[in-house]
């Protein structure tokens, strides 16, 4: 396992137009998708997840049912075990029927089986008819995004491509280029003897294949030729039409924020065509690792994927690097488990390194696939991270030493010379703004009594920052909770262990998780809550630990865990800040990535409003630091992190806010560095409103 490929990253960063366009496009698409999903309501999503999970649980039975239905309707079905089987079947068929010209509608499964190259080697002309796919085909490239394959090409590049490959001069305008291909591809539609499609779904009860498209090429591919072949991964099967519509209702919403795409085409033996009905129909059902994945605890969830691309659009590293770096055939977040399913973990590990474990893809995924945990497992199964990454998992040890020797550590972090040494030895980029140490630990400041308490209303889990780097947040949290009438215990725990999860050291992560669960489990009887001020800690306790440990105790801890601000949101005592206390009227609220899964409703924003501030929120996604990753040297982290940080800062500064509220200590580090604004933990505003004094009063970091 290696870290990010330096030359590939630098090359990608060098393409300024691409980076800028992709970031803006993905930002817009993800905002549309989120808005659409929020407007859709939970019922639709849970029906989708249920339907998809039912497929995963019944894969073999559904394959048999589909085979029966298609044959009954007069079609031919071939169940291909491997990619090789599938492509040979189609190539043989084309040969037997004397096919010389094939048209295709967009299909990732045919990319997976590398069908085009085999057909071309047999002298068969293959024309992609989806506009984006056609452009990529003409450019001799592969798609860089699963639903926007040519998003990396500019209009000028496309116009040049048309000139070079099709011999036509078109003005570099999307309308003119589209118009050209309307005519150019019509010739192909008329000429083709065989049409090949993918499948968004296969409906087992009737044997139909469902295609979801916007351009109409899918309809023409299934209407014009005399032989029609559909290729579908077996996981695309749903049992009934009700289940098909559970997926079809959500898919366009998650993909582009719309209730419907222009066309849903349902095909099968004898379906509508220019020959009145399709004369010859074949369905190729592809296994290629899917059945095995349905029995794999880490990969089975990924089989629920509906290929909406919502995960790609939110992914911070994908937005910067794109699918030619972060991806093989399957790109971006979903590309990692899907590469593992179809090509094995070693191949998947080559792209897994571009994941920084922000968890936004899990939050965005309508099928609720825990992609980040699957990626961590791929990193783990392929041998874990690099030596430097292993050192980063010792972040807590570094923080503890800093708590003992704050003067020395603050000096080291400030000195140019030592920053160069840090950079060369530990791989921490010298340009990264580091947090200063306050000195001492929260446990020491609070005293033994809090550690020994066996019964309390709330168990506070401070994580590394509030325990060792700046205990003032921890102290303030305890005082606020006490002012609200809670008794609080603060048992000595390890940090959440996120770096171990992030870099794929799951054996170490398991040890840390087990120790923390062991420490917490006896304290959470009778509705006692575990409260975190660091969103990453809440994410680990709630989401990651039960998956890593799989024990009843970890489940119990998960169910008891809350983020501080979601607990405080229910407190009626929190009232507006009194006049003449220092406060900014307009505050930008930054919603940390790991908080999105835990408190998707943004309770902090509502709390800030409740205490009389005007909270401004922008859904720009990840601020780009992702824990220790954004601190890493150059192309391994900081350079990409800075690309994101600068863009996010621009959006924040445009709001005119002079201050930022957030809960994540690392987001604070990034936001301070790139906006230059003061960043404060939300608890500081709440404390102010309750009249709880800060001890000590000086703001050190955030």
């Amino acid at each position, binding site marked *: 396992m290696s870290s990010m490929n330096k030359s590939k990253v630098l090359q990608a960063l060098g393409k300024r137009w691409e980076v800028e366009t992709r970031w803006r496009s993905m930002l817009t698409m993800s905002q549309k998708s989120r808005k659409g999903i929020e407007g859709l309501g939970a019922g639709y999503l849970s029906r989708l997840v249920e339907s998809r999970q039912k497929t995963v649980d019944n894969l073999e039975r559904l394959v048999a049912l589909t085979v029966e239905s298609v044959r009954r309707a007069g079609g031919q079905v071939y169940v291909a075990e491997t990619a090789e089987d599938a492509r040979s079947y189609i190539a043989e068929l084309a040969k037997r029927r004397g096919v010389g010209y094939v048209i295709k509608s967009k299909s990732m499964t045919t990319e997976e089986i590398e069908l085009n190259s085999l057909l071309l080697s047999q002298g068969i002309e293959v024309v992609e008819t989806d506009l984006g796919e056609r452009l990529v085909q003409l450019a001799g490239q592969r798609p860089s995004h699963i639903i926007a394959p040519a*998003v990396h090409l500019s209009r000028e590049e496309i116009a040049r491509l048309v000139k070079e490959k099709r011999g036509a001069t078109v003005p570099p305008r*999307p309308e003119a280029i589209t118009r050209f291909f309307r005519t150019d591809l*019509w010739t192909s539609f008329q000429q083709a003897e065989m049409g090949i499609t993918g499948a968004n779904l296969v409906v087992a009860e009737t044997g139909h294949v469902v295609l979801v498209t*916007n*351009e109409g*090429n899918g309809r023409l591919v299934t209407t014009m030729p005399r032989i029609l072949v559909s290729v579908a991964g077996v996981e695309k099967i749903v049992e009934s039409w009700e289940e098909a519509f559970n997926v079809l209702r959500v898919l366009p919403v998650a993909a*582009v924020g719309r209730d419907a795409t222009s066309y849903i085409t349902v095909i099968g033996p004898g379906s*509508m065509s*220019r020959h009145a009905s399709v004369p010859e129909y074949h369905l190729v059902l592809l296994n290629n690792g899917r059945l095995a994945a349905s029995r794999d605890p880490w990969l089975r969830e990924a089989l629920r994927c509906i290929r909406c691309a919502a995960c790609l659009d939110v992914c911070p590293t994908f937005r910067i690097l794109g699918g030619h770096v972060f991806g093989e055939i399957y790109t971006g977040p979903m590309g990692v488990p899907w590469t593992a399913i179809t090509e094995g973990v070693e191949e998947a590990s080559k792209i897994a390194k571009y994941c920084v474990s922000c968890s936004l893809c899990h939050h965005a995924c309508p099928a609720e696939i825990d992609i980040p945990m699957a990626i961590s497992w791929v990193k783990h199964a392929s041998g874990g991270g690099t030596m430097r990454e292993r050192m980063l998992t010792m972040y807590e040890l570094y923080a503890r030493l800093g708590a003992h020797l704050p003067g020395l550590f603050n000096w080291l972090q400030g000195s140019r010379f030592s920053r160069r040494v840090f950079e060369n030895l530990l791989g921490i980029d010298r340009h990264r703004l580091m947090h200063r140490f306050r000195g001492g630990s929260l446990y020491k400041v609070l005293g033994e009594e809090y550690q020994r308490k066996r019964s309390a209303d709330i168990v506070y889990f401070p994580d590394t920052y509030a325990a060792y780097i700046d205990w003032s947040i921890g102290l303030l949290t305890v005082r606020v909770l006490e002012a609200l009438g809670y008794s609080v215990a603060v048992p000595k725990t390890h940090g959440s262990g996120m770096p171990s999860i992030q870099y794929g050291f799951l054996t170490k992560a398991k040890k840390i998780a087990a120790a923390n669960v062991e420490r917490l489990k006896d304290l959470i009887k009778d509705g006692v809550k575990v409260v975190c001020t660091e969103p990453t800690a809440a994410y680990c306790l709630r989401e990651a630990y039960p998956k890593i440990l799989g024990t009843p105790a970890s489940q119990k801890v998960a169910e008891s865990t809350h983020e501080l601000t979601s607990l405080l949101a229910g407190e009626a005592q929190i009232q507006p800040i009194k006049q003449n206390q220092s406060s900014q009227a307009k505050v930008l609220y930054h919603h940390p990535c790991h908080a999105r899964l835990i408190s998707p409703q943004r309770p902090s924003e509502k709390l800030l409003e409740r205490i009389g501030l005007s909270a401004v929120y922008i859904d720009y996604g990840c601020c780009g630091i992702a824990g220790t990753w954004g601190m890493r040297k150059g192309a391994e982290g900081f350079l990409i992190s800075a690309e994101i940080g600068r863009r996010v800062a621009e959006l924040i500064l445009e709001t005119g806010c002079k201050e930022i509220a957030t809960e994540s200590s690392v987001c604070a580090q990034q936001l301070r560095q790139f906006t230059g604004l003061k960043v404060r933990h939300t608890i500081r505003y709440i404390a102010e409103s309750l009249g709880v004094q800060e001890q000590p009063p000086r703001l050190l970091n955030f």
Partner: protein
Amino acid sequence: MREETTGNNPTPLARRFLAKCKENGFQVAYTPSYNDLLSVLSEWSTGWGVGKIVLGGVSAGLAERLRGALSVQSPCEVLGEADLEKLGDLRAGSLGVFRARAGVAETGGLVIIDDWKANLASLIPEYSVGLLKESEVLPDYWELSSLIRKSRPAGLAIISGPSSTSDIELTHVVGVHGPVACGCVVAGFELDE
């Protein structure tokens, strides 16, 4: 008559359907009578500058009346087997009028079921208009499931807007391989004479 001027109002479900279709980029109309339908079709085809009209999957009686009336404006033919080899002639400047068998109100889509003529008329020409009866509007996809199970079609198409793409710099462009513009008419009268 067109939505805004009709004296005879559509049912709430049909109204919801038309509103959603409009949001999806259709031109929409509710026509209480045959004459209303005729005036909508001729108004739209004039607006689009249509040079030729083809009817696909429309009942023989209605097709005959429409052909007679619309031919005054532009040549109007009923799509038949003979056209299959010269579909290219329909690509530019023509309008396909097709009979849909259902509409889906929640998502705004016209459904063609097992009708190759309607399928071609909705797909090949530069413009297309789908006709359906008010009673054929279904609330949502799940109602369509029952219809599919009952009628067991070999194939269907749900059309929810003009053909479009955002493949070049994510700029939205209409009219890629299918119609550049499309219309949807809900008829308050019997279409299948």
